[in-house]
């Protein structure tokens, strides 16, 4: 019971941060500020969901190694995709001053 509650709270937290990331994508004014939102959603948003998975698998007696692998892959790939996006934009226009 307690484990279900902890896991649910973590899923909700992760979901909330993912939602904030999506809201940011809509609300923020320009390309560079918008890019902050999705790189965030992958860190704490997915982090919360992965932590919930870890709690569940720990309760089930398994190690939850695949959850750790998921977060590792995300942490490696998220900055790279963000960097490729900025590269593409910089090729088309100069960064705004200031």
């Amino acid at each position, binding site marked *: 019971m307690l484990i279900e509650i902890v896991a649910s709270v973590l899923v909700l937290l992760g979901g909330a941060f993912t939602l904030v990331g999506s809201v940011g994508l809509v609300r923020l004014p320009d390309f*560079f500020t918008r890019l902050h939102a999705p790189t965030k959603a992958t*860190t*704490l948003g997915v982090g919360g969901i992965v932590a919930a998975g870890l709690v569940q698998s720990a309760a089930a007696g398994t190690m939850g*190694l695949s959850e750790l692998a998921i977060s590792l892959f995300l942490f490696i790939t998220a*900055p790279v995709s963000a960097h490729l996006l*900025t590269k593409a934009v910089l090729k088309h226009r100069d960064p705004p001053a200031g």
Partner: protein
Amino acid sequence: MRRVLPQPLVSLMILALWIAIAPAPSLGQFVLGSAIAVAIPWFTHPFWPDPPRLVRPVAAVMLFLRVMWDIVVANVEVAWLVLGPSDRLHPKFIELPLEIDDPFVATLLASIITLTPGTLSVDIDRERRVLLVHALDVTDVPAAIDTIKRRYEAPLREIFGC
């Protein structure tokens, strides 16, 4: 040895990851994972001709924990900024002078900057040794540069001895 396994540590990591994400550990998965662990460094090795050595593993663990903590704290701050009135934002481009010369370590620093919310690595200028960073809400640029250099760059240089 070096010809078959140009980067033994990388191969070991790939094998461990393969076993970790396999639905159930078995001899077949081990053989398949080993084949992949040998093959992938053949292709990626030319990109990292001489990878830097980990000089201070304990400091690396400390930095990892610090980055995890910063991700949590700064995420809450950024969530607040996103949901609040957007005229409170002070987005800015910052030029961060790099003291790191090694491309691998510089990539690590750039990735940490992107992962810690509020800042985003945009571009790296290897000739001028400047990292272009976009910050979501910064008013004091020298202080922001100082924070990044002290919290992330200095430990990275210590960890890899460069």
